[in-house]
């Protein structure tokens, strides 16, 4: 057992080195802008850049719309499948896994060809519609994570009993969904939302191919033209991802613990 523990430490330390050296190197590199001294100049330049602010805000707004769209599409479906149509579960689970099978670049390629300016549904005809198409594409990318999160949340509550109780008290469907089901799975929905946010905020492929002024293409552009700013941006991006994941962890502590109901 002692040798086992020794090797466990070796593996852990090697792994930790592989994961922390790039982070340390990036942090160090990002502070090297001023000659001979460490400084936060690169961060100041990046954060003060008007294009950084504009593209970052664009992506934040896109992420928020993505989350709203994702919730509208996923929550009713996941709820309805638990309540009424369990036989559809395998089909829906298969569909939600498709975005992991079909690369994002293929999906957006399909959009460009199918919804071009001359098509019956010309999403690429103007900026507003293209923005909508980007949000739709992001919602597609986040489908596997959103569905899984919501379905896990629904598993911990007794959907049938809650619905019947609400119906007996005279609630309609919209009341049941917004005032009974949604509050109960709110934490699960929020976990899915933060994961979606982390995926969407720096997404490059779709935004770039749809020519949207998003954060991902901005990052790529800075990387191709600057030396120290990319390192600062990498640290900022890592902090954002870290923030989203921490929020999910914190939220999971508030999630209902009454799992493993037979339903």
């Amino acid at each position: 057992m002692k040798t086992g523990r020794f090797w466990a430490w070796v593996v852990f330390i090697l792994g930790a080195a592989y994961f922390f050296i790039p982070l340390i190197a990036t942090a160090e590199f990002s502070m090297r802008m001023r000659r001979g001294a460490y400084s936060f100049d690169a961060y100041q330049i990046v954060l003060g850049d008007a294009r950084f602010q504009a593209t970052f805000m664009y992506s934040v707004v896109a992420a928020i719309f993505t989350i709203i769209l994702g919730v509208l599409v996923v929550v009713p479906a996941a709820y309805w499948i638990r309540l009424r149509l369990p036989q559809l579960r395998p089909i829906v689970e298969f569909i939600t896994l498709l975005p992991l099978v079909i690369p994002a670049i293929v999906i957006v390629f399909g959009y460009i060809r199918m919804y071009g300016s001359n098509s019956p549904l010309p999403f690429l005809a103007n900026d507003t519609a293209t923005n909508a198409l980007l949000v739709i594409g992001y919602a597609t990318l986040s489908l596997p994570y959103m569905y899984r999160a919501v379905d896990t949340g629904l598993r911990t509550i007794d959907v049938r009993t809650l619905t019947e109780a609400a119906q007996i008290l005279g609630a309609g469907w919209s009341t049941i969904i917004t005032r009974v089901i949604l509050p109960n799975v709110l934490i699960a929905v929020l976990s899915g939302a933060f994961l979606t946010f982390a995926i969407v905020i720096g997404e490059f492929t779709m935004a770039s191919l749809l020519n949207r002024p998003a954060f991902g293409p901005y990052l790529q552009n800075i990387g191709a033209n600057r030396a120290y700013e990319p390192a600062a941006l990498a640290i900022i991006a890592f902090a954002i991802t870290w923030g989203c994941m921490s929020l999910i962890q914190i939220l999971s502590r508030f999630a209902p613990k009454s799992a493993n109901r037979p339903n």
Partner: protein
Amino acid sequence: MTDLSLSNQTIAGKTAPPSEARALRLPTQWIGVAPFFIFAVMFLILPTLYLMLGAFQNEAGEFTLENLIALSEPNIVAAYLISIKVSLASALIGAFAGLAIAVAIVRGGLPNWIRSATLTFSGVASNFAGVPLAFAFLATLGRLGLATVILNTVFGLNIYAHGFNILSFWGLTLTYVYFQIPLMVVIIVPAIDGLKKEWGEAAATLGATTAQYWRMVVIPVIWPSFLGTVILLFANAFGAIATAYALTGSSLNIVPILLYAQIRGDVLHNAHLGYAIAFGMIVITGLANVFYIWFRTRSERWLK
């Protein structure tokens, strides 16, 4: 449709008169899942089918196999080969390293906080991909990166003089491993947790050594989910573009970058060849996932 109305009638027969049931239940039965299916068909299934059909058509819309045959052009074959090599190498390295880390933190007798810290970090690192990851590796292993400089000045090892380049096969593989290992850890830890203590005790009671316990119990049980995850990692790397594009520009000719250039500027001078490339990508990741599902169903027999 027919068997749907049939099942509705049988349910309705117990609770309400059939006429009323047909009027009220049929629409509501489907209304909850309708937005989901409309969304999935319009923005996931139809666009993909459109490309797949386009791969079999020429500019005039006639059926042809020429686009698929044109995939055998040397630069396209080279792109597929290097993509498959990078994806496979990063998936295998990521899988074995991830498995080692997972076993170390679950079974290695390390303090408890290490396990939770590793899992939290893995959740973050598996989502830390794309353009920023490329920046991090350029700052680490680029020509002026910290690791490159320290290896050179402290250990006298100039990795660039020895043929290493971050803008190469190994550079890209090493970068991809950064999100492959954590993904492996996140997926495989539950599988290792699923190994029941009783199995170890039973093996020990029957006189098995630790090596025998691993060879005859642990590895056979973990094997399907391990292989399944390798395939998932492969598909994950195969479709990725942002990291490679930010890291190497278009100097490394992998399939997603080729397709990206084709979508932007028709570099292959044949729009339908782009469809064929997309079709090839779907076939490869699709096949990978068929195997994944197959291994997954095999592993679930044990890990309930």
